[in-house]
């Protein structure tokens, strides 16, 4: 059995087991974590194999679809391997975190959480692993379904139900647009298959023979992927859905779902669409939408006073950077491959980095919620005094997302900025997009300073009944893991860029400039070059994370030494208010007034969209609420069986474990049977 199928089988088994074990909340969590880790080991081995041997190709035994005698080839190329890595990273850390975090939802049975979570991870694997549009869409829609279950986990909360419905409708409409696009391509495909390799030729022919139809197909795909990615006009569901979902769900989805939207965009616009004048137009549109998202998402985030909502708007803003990078890649490839490849690498690097720090930020918010019961920025503060690990990881994540060197977010943003300025030499609009992105980067920093300052720094103020303790180890480990990724990818970007380059070079046609000609030969330093225009100059941009960080740290030590030179003593004094007396409350600066002068100038950029009140047919509602027709009956059945077993003399736990073994055996037999 190939590693990917192994991973999926492990996840499915885990889903079944957790469904039966859902009564034992902690145990269900451990089983889920074990299956995710087992699957991850298999996937990481696969990723490494792909990076050393090239694309991995096999026929899946379980997926001999009865559609027109189709044998679905499983092809994981290097681009997919990058996304496999993201899924592994996010899946392991969020599942680990969920062990104790799900205590917050004590009232709800976990039968709706862990099975859905594991199925969700399994479907995301399916999305990236197939080079076949039909299977891709199938898994895409399954991913929508499973993530819907995760969002609407706390259905008794009206906002969760509404958010779930909104997300489901938005995602389904988007998928149906993609189905239409696929159907058009299928109809014009002489060999009538859904393989990417065939669709590539079909789209190539369409662009010359029927350009209008080709543009319609591309527009449909753009809207479809843009909705999942959360790009500006289509990402309206994000600020509604993420705050309403359990924090673990928000972390998993912010880390994976939006990134797969970028994956789809790269697949269609760089892999399927041949580089031409058309890709210049569509690349510019992608970059423009991306920049619009950066501006509106980030400026709106500045006004938020609830942590998860603030982070949700930053999801929109950050996706903008990725689309800007991908847009440069799409638009510039036939004009200037060196700029395009680096732009695309910047976009993909931002995808990887964003998956780590955005998940981490949601986990930080989850840790705050776990300890204090709220994520309102004004209700708690000074958590660094009781939660040091969470605080340090939140600082790393915040500085990383704000693009502070040498953390990971800086390097990817830096690549995107550089390339948009250089692309501006050929297509002037990019230089202005890059400028906007540079300034909004400072706004991101201001916004996360507010997040840090109000939640973590300053004097401790929490509710009465809050325990003054760090969150449990099972929550600090995943945060530490992601924080380490943020630091390592920032300090040593070249090896990561090498993998991303392999992924990008593989899907691009023609002669792709060599890696060394793009980023220089040093293993530590990135030297960007602009091939062909001014080769006498050599490098046109440089970033040496190790040396600059060393200099910065040296300068900090120097400054610290200077400040200690005079041997000044420290004394605590009250605030000087020109002799008048005020209480702290009178002059307190809350998160509302934090950036007020700025908000005055840029207020209401993101209008609260009037979401139409939707009524759905009863049957569909019932279908969408699997509580009533599958989970609860299944749980009742399991319970009854277990009780019967217990009464027969065995003890429940032993029976469960026996069941686990039996299931593994059954699944193994099925696989063996299907394989032969």
């Amino acid at each position, binding site marked *: 059995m190939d590693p990917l199928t192994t991973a999926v089988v492990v996840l499915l088994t885990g889903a079944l087991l957790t469904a039966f074990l859902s009564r034992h909340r902690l145990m269900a969590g451990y089983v889920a974590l074990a299956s995710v880790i087992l699957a991850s080991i298999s996937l990481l081995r696969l990723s490494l194999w792909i990076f050393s041997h090239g694309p991995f190709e096999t026929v899946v035994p379980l997926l001999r679809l009865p559609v027109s005698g189709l044998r679905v080839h499983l092809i994981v190329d290097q681009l997919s391997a990058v996304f496999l890595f993201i899924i592994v990273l996010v899946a392991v850390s969020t599942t680990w975190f969920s062990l104790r975090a799900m205590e917050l939802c004590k009232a709800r049975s976990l039968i709706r959480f862990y099975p859905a979570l594991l199925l969700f991870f399994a479907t995301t694997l399916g999305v990236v692993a197939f080079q076949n549009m039909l299977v891709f869409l199938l898994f895409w829609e399954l991913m929508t379904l499973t993530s819907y279950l995760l969002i609407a986990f706390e259905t008794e909360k009206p906002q969760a139900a509404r958010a779930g419905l909104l997300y489901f409708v938005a995602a389904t409409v988007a998928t149906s647009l993609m189905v239409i696009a696929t159907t058009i391509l299928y109809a014009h495909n002489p060999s009538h298959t859904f393989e990417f390799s065939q669709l590539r030729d079909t789209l190539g022919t369409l662009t010359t023979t029927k350009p209008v139809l080709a543009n319609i197909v591309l527009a449909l795909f753009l809207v479809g992927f843009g909705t999942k990615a959360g790009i500006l006009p289509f990402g309206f569901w994000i600020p509604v859905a993420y705050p309403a979902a359990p924090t673990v769900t928000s972390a998993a989805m912010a880390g994976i779902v939006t990134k797969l939207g970028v994956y789809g965009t790269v697949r269609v616009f760089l892999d399927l669409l041949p580089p031409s004048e058309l890709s210049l137009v569509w690349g510019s549109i992608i970059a423009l939408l991306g920049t619009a998202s950066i501006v509106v998402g980030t400026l709106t985030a500045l006004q938020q006073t609830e942590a998860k909502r603030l982070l949700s708007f930053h999801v929109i803003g950050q996706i903008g950077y990725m689309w800007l990078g991908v847009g440069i890649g799409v638009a510039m490839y036939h004009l200037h491959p060196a700029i395009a490849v680096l732009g695309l690498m910047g976009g993909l690097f931002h995808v990887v980095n964003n998956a780590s720090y955005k998940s981490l930020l949601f986990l930080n918010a989850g840790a705050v919620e776990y300890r204090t019961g709220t994520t309102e920025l004004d209700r708690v503060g000074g958590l660094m005094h009781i939660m040091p690990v969470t605080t340090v990881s939140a600082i790393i994540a915040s500085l990383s997302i704000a693009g502070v060197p040498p953390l990971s977010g800086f390097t990817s943003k830096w690549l995107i900025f550089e390339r948009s300025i250089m692309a501006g030499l050929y297509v002037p609009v990019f230089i202005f997009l890059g400028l906007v992105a540079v300034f909004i980067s400072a706004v991101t920093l*201001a916004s996360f300073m507010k997040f840090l300052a109000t939640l973590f*720094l300053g004097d401790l103020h929490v509710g009465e009944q809050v325990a003054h303790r760090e969150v449990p180890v099972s929550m600090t480990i995943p945060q530490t893991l992601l924080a380490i990724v943020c630091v390592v990818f920032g300090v040593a970007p070249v090896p990561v860029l090498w993998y991303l380059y392999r992924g990008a070079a593989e899907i691009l046609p023609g002669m792709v400039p060599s890696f060394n000609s793009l980023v220089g030969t040093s293993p530590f330093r990135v030297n960007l070059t602009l091939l062909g225009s001014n080769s006498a100059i050599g490098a046109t941009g*440089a970033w040496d994370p190790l040396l*600059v960080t060393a200099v910065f740290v040296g300068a900090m030590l120097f*400054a610290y030494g*200077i400040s200690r030179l005079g041997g*000044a003593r420290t004394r605590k*004094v009250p605030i*000087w208010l020109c002799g008048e007396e005020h209480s702290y409350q009178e002059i307190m600066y809350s998160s509302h007034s934090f950036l007020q002068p700025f908000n005055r100038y840029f207020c209401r950029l993101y209008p609260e969209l009037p979401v139409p009140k939707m009524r759905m047919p009863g049957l569909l509602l019932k279908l969408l609420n699997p509580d009533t027709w599958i989970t609860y009956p299944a749980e009742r059945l399991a319970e009854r069986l277990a009780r019967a077993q217990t009464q027969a003399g065995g003890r429940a736990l032993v029976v469960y474990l026996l069941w686990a073994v039996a299931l593994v055996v059954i699944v193994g037999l099925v696989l063996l049977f299907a394989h032969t």
Partner: protein
Amino acid sequence: MAGYESGLKVTQMTLALNLVIALLLGPLMAGVVRKFVRARLHSRQGPPVLQPFYDICKLLGKEDLRSSSSPIVDFAPIVVMAATITAALLTPMGMRSPLAGHGDLIVFVNLVTIAVVGTVMVGLSSASPYSLIGAAREIMMHIMVEPVLVICLIVAAVKAQSLLFWHMAEGATAGGMSISMVIATIAMLMAMQAQIGKQPFDIAEAETEVMGGAFVELSGPRLALFQWASFARQIVYASMLAAIFIPWGIDLAPPWNLGAHLLKLLGVYVLVGIVDVVHPRIRVEQAIKFFVIIIVLSLIGLGLAIGGY
């Protein structure tokens, strides 16, 4: 290419040079301008030339009074100083900067932003309303002034087709004057006053109004670090203007290119000093109106630069 490669080495000479210029020449120049421009125009004697150093030394020994327990107050002065020093090591000061091949325009802009955000955070971490007003004004000024700096530098980058400062400086000297560079130079000069916090744009600190703004609650060594970093920041911006937008002297033989740079710096400082003395402070919304015009001007320059003018 060979020259570029050799330039990648961090030569101890330029390292020492940039540090000396940023950390020692910065306060000295401020003292010189204070004594010979500002005091002369006021028709008074003026403080000694070395007064900035005396101030810093005195502050280092003074008691450190804290009104806030936030760790930001501990870290921010050090981070601001470090960011300013690192930015100074990226700035061409007569010769190729020591970090020339290790960082570029975007890195520089990020370091400058870190320094500004550090100042703002100090202001915001105190509960004093003066310091909060100062911090809010600092943000507003940064948002209005920073674009001018970045756009002008990008104009030079477009002309040189490179984002490395050394190429930009060389390209500006070799390429001679062009319409876009002239516009960028004018915009840079207009923004200079605000970048280094001099009248009429010392809105954020405004001693007579908000008592030093973000620094009102600082004392002792932390205030000394902020003041020193501020002197260094002035000379970094002035050097950027002198090296890239006054295209003369970069290509002279080694000791003379440094001399030319110092001469240009003196010119910039005297000009800034005179404007500082003869102008009253303006209000923040007047400043915003002014800088909107400058931003539009520099964007026109950028458009012309892309067009090849």
